[in-house]
Every structure is written in structure tokens, then in C-alpha cells.
């Protein structure tokens, strides 16, 4: 109905338009929304362009050299004639610092996120958050400078004692906690008599002595270690973990907050302690969100350039033995940054294109992990919403 205006004799306050005006309004709306849509699509276009332009410069490398050498050889001599382009050691180096930083940042980040969401009172939390934001805000080159100029000499000169003290401070409390728990488990069951209590004490003391010896000998071994170069995988991993922490903490915290109060209260009501509530109830419910946080944090570490370029030592070999974090390594990002300066002069050669091949590899890794983490977050949201 109402195909045409109802009243031809228009009153001043009539709200029915002429067809003419309706058409004009529709055109204006179409143009306006079209403009907004074009601008909003800009990001998608840019993403496509990035993939296209990095790939188009990466493909000539694979055409010239194939895939085999790049992924399986560790000989990286791009400047030779003819050059060798084995990137395995470099890919390995990227993986090594990424895993190293994850080993530090993930436990620390999750513990901090739990602390922020469940332990600290609101007033304290307000001061903790800016600390995390500041950690995230410090430019990567400043971290790189710290790693190269301040931390590397420290590691080189006092490496052994530093490692030993870190071992005592971190492993010590955990080992003793383990002693208490294990002696509890060993002696539990049956009735609670004085004799049992005495046995428990004896067991605890015995285990404690063993643990102390263990701590002491590992510490002594660490103390004797000589670090030949302060610019190594350990240094980089530590600094990268600082940079990954803010992402892990804030995304995990969001995920922990998303688990409602009801779940926590249900667990407390059954007589669980806070630790038990969090470990057995909250963490499983938030696990997928935390996984997404870990992936996002790792992505920061894998894509970081300046720190690894300045403080990894840039030597393209697989460390001996393979887990030796005190050796220098080289990563994909640092190779791109460092070699482009020379390769740029001879645009078109394999030496130039191999860097784009590395860029493409990074791009694919980041795309896949981003996609995965996004899926995970969406799934968690659906599960929590009860769909």
C-alpha cells in the first residue's frame, strides 16, 4: 500500500516525501555508504596487496633455486658466486628464540594474568596495568639496545653466577614445594596418628636433603659455565619474552574474566581453595582463550626484528648441541633486515628474492597462527555463551 503519497495537498508538517526526494535520498545514502564501505575495505585490500607483492618477489627465488635447498640446507652464503641459500639454520634460529621466549613468557604471563584477574584487589590492579602497557610501549629498538649494550656484556662477564642465582631463585621454591607435596602423598592414607606425623617429618627432611643436593649440584654446574658471547639465543629469548608478555597477559586476562563469577562461586562453595578453583575450574574454561593469547604472544616474538638483529649474534648455524641457548644464532627477520642493504643494489637476483621468500614464510606463519587464534576465540565465546 501507499505506493504514492497519500495527500497531494501537502501540509507543512507532512512527513511523506515526493518520489523525487525519495530517489535523491536513496542515491545519497548509496553513495555515502559506498564510500564508507570502500574505506573499510581498504584494510582487506592492503592485506591482499601485501601477500601479492611479497609473493611476487618471492616466487622468482623458488623458480631459480627450487624448494629443496632453502628448507634443508644450512649453508647460507648469499654473497658468494654462485651463492648458497640454505635457510634451515636461520629458520631453526627463529624457532629457537620463539620457543625460548615462549618458555619464559607463557608461565609468567599466565601467572600474571591469573593474579590480575583473581588475586589482586582492584586498587592494585589499576597500578599493575600501566606497567604492562609500558612494557608493551617501549620500542623494540630500545629493547635491542638494552640487550646489546647492557645485558650482553653482563651475560658475558658474569654469565655463570647469573645462571646459578636465577636457578636458585626460580627452581628453589618449586623444588621445595614439590618436596612438601610428594612427602604428603607418600605418607597419606590411613589414620592421622602421632607416629604418622613423625614419619612424615622424617620423609620431608630426607626428601629435602636430596632436593638441596640436587639444587646445589645443578647450581654449581651452572656457575662454572663460561658464556663466550653475550649476544646469544638466551639473551634474545629473555628480551623477546618481555615483549611477548603484555600480549599474553592482557589477552589471557580477558579470557579469564570472561569465565563468569558463578563458576568460581560454585567451586568455592564446594570447599576448594583459590588455587584449586582456578586450576581445576577457571583455567579449563578459559583454556582456549589462553591458547589464543599464547599464539598471539609467540607471533610477536617470531616477527620481532630489532632485538634479534642486534643481540642474537647473527651467525647462521644450528647450535652445538642443538639446544645450546648460549650459542649465537640468526633469525629470518634479522636476515631480511641485515641482507637487504646489500641485496638491494642488485635488484632481481636470487639474493634479493630469497629475502622476500623469507618474508613470505613469516607472512604465512603469522597468517595461519592469527587465523587459528581467531577461530579459538570465536569458539570459546560460543561455548561460554552456551551455544
Amino acid at each position, binding site marked *: 500500500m501507499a505506493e504514492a503519497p497519500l495527500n497531494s495537498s501537502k501540509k507543512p508538517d507532512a512527513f511523506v516525501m515526493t518520489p523525487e526526494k525519495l530517489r535523491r535520498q536513496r542515491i545519497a545514502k548509496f553513495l555515502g555508504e559506498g564510500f564508507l*564501505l570502500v*574505506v*573499510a575495505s581498504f*584494510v*582487506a585490500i*592492503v*592485506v591482499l*596487496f*601485501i601477500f601479492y607483492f*611479497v609473493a611476487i618477489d618471492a616466487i622468482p627465488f623458488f623458480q631459480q633455486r627450487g624448494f629443496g635447498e632453502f628448507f634443508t640446507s644450512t649453508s647460507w652464503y648469499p654473497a658468494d658466486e654462485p651463492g648458497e641459500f640454505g635457510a634451515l639454520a636461520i629458520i631453526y634460529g627463529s624457532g629457537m628464540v620463539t620457543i625460548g621466549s615462549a618458555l619464559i613468557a607463557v608461565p609468567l604471563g599466565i*601467572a*600474571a594474568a591469573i*593474579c590480575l584477574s583473581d*588475586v*589482586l584487589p582492584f586498587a592494585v590492579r589499576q597500578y*599493575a596495568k600501566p*606497567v*604492562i*602497557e*609500558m*612494557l608493551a*610501549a*617501549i*620500542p*623494540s*629498538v*630500545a629493547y*635491542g*639496545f*638494552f640487550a*646489546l*649494550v647492557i645485558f650482553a656484556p653482563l651475560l658475558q662477564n658474569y654469565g655463570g653466577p647469573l645462571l646459578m642465582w636465577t636457578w636458585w631463585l626460580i627452581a628453589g*621454591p618449586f623444588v621445595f*614445594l614439590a618436596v*612438601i*607435596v610428594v612427602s*604428603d*602423598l607418600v605418607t597419606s592414607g590411613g589414620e592421622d596418628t602421632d607416629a604418622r606425623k613423625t614419619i612424615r617429618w622424617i620423609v620431608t627432611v630426607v626428601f629435602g636433603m636430596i632436593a638441596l643436593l640436587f639444587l646445589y649440584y645443578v647450581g654449581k654446574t651452572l656457575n662454572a659455565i*663460561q658464556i663466550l658471547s653475550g649476544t646469544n639465543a638466551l639473551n634474545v629469548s629473555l628480551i623477546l619474552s*618481555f615483549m611477548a*608478555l603484555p600480549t599474553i*597477559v592482557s589477552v589471557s586476562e580477558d579470557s579469564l574474566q570472561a569465565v563468569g563469577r558463578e563458576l568460581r562461586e560454585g567451586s568455592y562453595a564446594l570447599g576448594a*581453595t*583459590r*588455587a584449586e578453583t582456578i586450576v581445576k575450574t577457571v583455567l579449563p574454561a578459559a583454556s582456549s582463550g589462553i591458547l589464543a593469547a599464547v599464539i598471539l604472544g609467540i607471533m610477536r616474538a617470531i*616477527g*620481532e*626484528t*630489532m632485538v634479534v638483529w*642486534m643481540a642474537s649474534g647473527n651467525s647462521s648455524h644450528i647450535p652445538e648441541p642443538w639446544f645450546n641457548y648460549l650459542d649465537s644464532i640468526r633469525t629470518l*627477520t634479522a636476515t*631480511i*633486515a641485515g641482507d*637487504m642493504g646489500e641485496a638491494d643494489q642488485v635488484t632481481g637476483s636470487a639474493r634479493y628474492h630469497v629475502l*622476500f621468500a623469507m618474508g613470505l614464510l*613469516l*607472512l604465512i606463519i*603469522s597468517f595461519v597462527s*592469527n587465523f587459528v587464534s*581467531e577461530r579459538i576465540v570465536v569458539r570459546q565465546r560460543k561455548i561460554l555463551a552456551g551455544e
Partner: protein
Amino acid sequence: MDLGTRKILDKSFTAVGITSILLMAVALLVVIVPIFSGGIGAIFFKGTIEHRKLQYEEFGNGDREVIQRQIEESDIYRNKVFAMLGEFETELESMTPAESRKLRSSYKKARKVLSHLLGPLPGDQEPILLRYRYGTTRWEQAEEALHDLLYVTKWDYSDPTRMAKQYFVPRMEEFKGTSLAVFFPFMEENLANMMLPEQTFYWGFITERSLDAHIFGGIWAEIQGTFFLAVGAMLFAFPLGVIAAIYFTEYAKDNLFTSILRSANSTLAGVPSIVFGLFGLAFFINTVKVSESKSVLAGSLTLAIMILPTIIRASEEAILAVPKAYKEASMSLGSTKWRTIVTVILPAALPGIITGGIISLGRAAGETAPIIFTAAVSVGATIGIADVFSSPTPALSWNIYNLASEHEAANEIRHVQYGMVLALISIVLLLNLSAILLRARISKKLKG
């Protein structure tokens, strides 16, 4: 498990959480404090007469008469030193070649260290590089140079299982029995008289250009370059980001296309920064050719793409936080959707949008990887605003890397590096701090 054990576990659990937060705070301090204390040293230090001489001759700073008088004052002692050198040289002449060969080479080394300390010595050629025309400008460097003059550094390789050990041998021993023997104690005693150290507040570190590849002078060119790059990036990214956020929050329908756009946004946020650099090189410079080679424009465009997702996300959040009541009120008064957005929603969301913008500005200022191939040069003059379309520029972030890792005298200009890092961190942290304060004010306002 025993209740006691459970309680201990619970307490330790809390302790681990709090420790991890504390560790993060400690990490922040451990990074920032040395950089602050080192960076202050670039501006506030004990400067020698050489510093004042350089300042007067190169920048025209300082009182001519005072400096003249101080130069004369220090020359009293310097001339005594030069006299000793002259005496020793004539002594060398009088020796037989066999006797003097060893002494000559030792003397040559000592003389080199001395000229590093005091500037060109009488009889030296006028040096071409500016860095050799002046002695040490900073007192702590003068003391180090004195140490180098008094002692020869040797390495002990006797224990092959450990790293070589450093030890020092007095240089005086090489000149035992010659007239130069008195020279070393004299230097040790009268260094301050020759260098006239004074507490110096070198504000010019921020406002002056660098001399001879940052051996002397300030970092203005880098600060300006960073400013151009970051502001340029904002000029492109801010309007685009805000408009895209308006689309996402007010117009986008809940369909596949929108979700593709949204995941494109988070993909872009996750792209490694060095890949942005590659893209900037391949697209803006090699394909579109916005400039012949590196330029501020190409760098700004690359940075703009990098910060775009952050701006979109922050703006979206800010727009979504505007109470729906404002929109309803405006619509009920007969406003169109677009006018409602422009006159009511955007003004209310503006503080939040600006907060996101400020944080992005800080990020653009601090990033290095995207500008390596697109905009940054290691040594360069200050560029004018008209040159941004064609010239590359030095920038704080890039030059920190360059001076610390690639400069031939990286160890001697640590103070400049620290100063640059401090400048960069101050810029970024001040921007972030203002964003945090702004946000606190908004949340207070929203609470009423």
C-alpha cells in the same frame, strides 16, 4: 591431600602470581633505569675545555672571552707537556737507530693516545676529520684516555680452558731512563688542569645537528625525522581508521563480507613489522614509485598501514562505548544517521579515539623495521618540510640501531646512543602516559 599442604599450595600459588607481576615491574625498571641514567649523561655531564672549544667554533655557543681565557689557562700545562715531548724527541734524535727503534714505536703509540686526549699535538698535520681536531670532550672519557696513556692493556692467554684475562702494564716502564719518564706522573697529576672539567648542561644535544657522524653534536635531525615519519603516518592512517571504524560500528551488516573485513584487520595487525618494510619497498618504492628511492613519504605510508588496525580497533571501541541514549535522543529529534554520527557520536567518542591515536603515534615513532628499506638513512642532514616527498631522513629508532651496531666508533659514543634511546623512550612513554591519563579521565566521566 592434607589440608595443611593444600593451604601451603594455595599460598604459593598466590605468591607465584604476585611474583610474576613484580617480575614484570622489575623487568621494566631494569630496562628503563640504566637507559635513563645513561641518557641523562648525554645532556648533563662534566665537559672539558675541548667541549667548550668545539661548541664555540662549530655552533657559536659560549662566551668567547671566557673560553679564550680557559684555553690559555690549560695551555700553560699543555705547553709543559709539549716541551717534554720536544725534549724527548731531541733525545731520540741523538740515539743510535738501534737504540731508538723500539722507543720510537712506543712513543708513536703514546703520542696517538695523547692526541686523542688533548687534540692535535704540535707538529701533527691538520686532521681532515673533525673527530681528530678536538681532544676528548667529556671528562670521563678523558680519564679513560689517561688510563690508556698510563697503562698498556695486555691479555693473558696462559689458561687455555678459560677466556683470556686482561691486565695492565704501566707505559712508563717502556720509557725508563729517558726524559719522558717525568711526563707520565705529570699527566696523571695535571689532567684536570689541562682539561678544565666543568659541570655542563648540554641542551644542544636535543636541538643541534650532529657533527662527524655523531662523534660530536646533537640529535636534532633524528628527532625531526621521527616526528615527520610518525606524524605523516598519522595523517594517512587516522582519517582512514576512524572512517573504517564508523563503518564497522554503525553500518556493517552481520554477514560473511563483514567478517572477512574484520579478519583482514586482525591479520594486518599480526603481520611482522619487517614484512611491512618488504612490502613498502616492493610496493611504494619499486611499483608505485612514490619516490625515486627511500623517502619520508614512503616510510610514512608503510608505517600508516602498520598502525591502521590499531586505530580502527581503538576507534571502534570508543564508538561502541558511547551510550546508545545519545543516538536515540538525536534520532528522535529528527536527525539523520550520518548527522547523528558527526554531531553526537563522534564528539562523545573523540577522547577514546584520540587515545588510540596517541598510542599508535607512539608506535609509529618507535618502529624501526618498516622504515629500514623505505625511509631511514644512517647519517643525514636535517631535512626541510618540502623534502619529505623525495628525501630519506635519519630517525631515532634507526640511528639507535646504526650507532650501536654499525658505527665504527660505537664504543666511544655510547652516551649519544643512550641519549637517543632516552629521547625515543621519553617520546613514546610520554605519549602513552598521556593516553593512560586521558583514558582515566574518560572512565571517570562515564561513571559520572
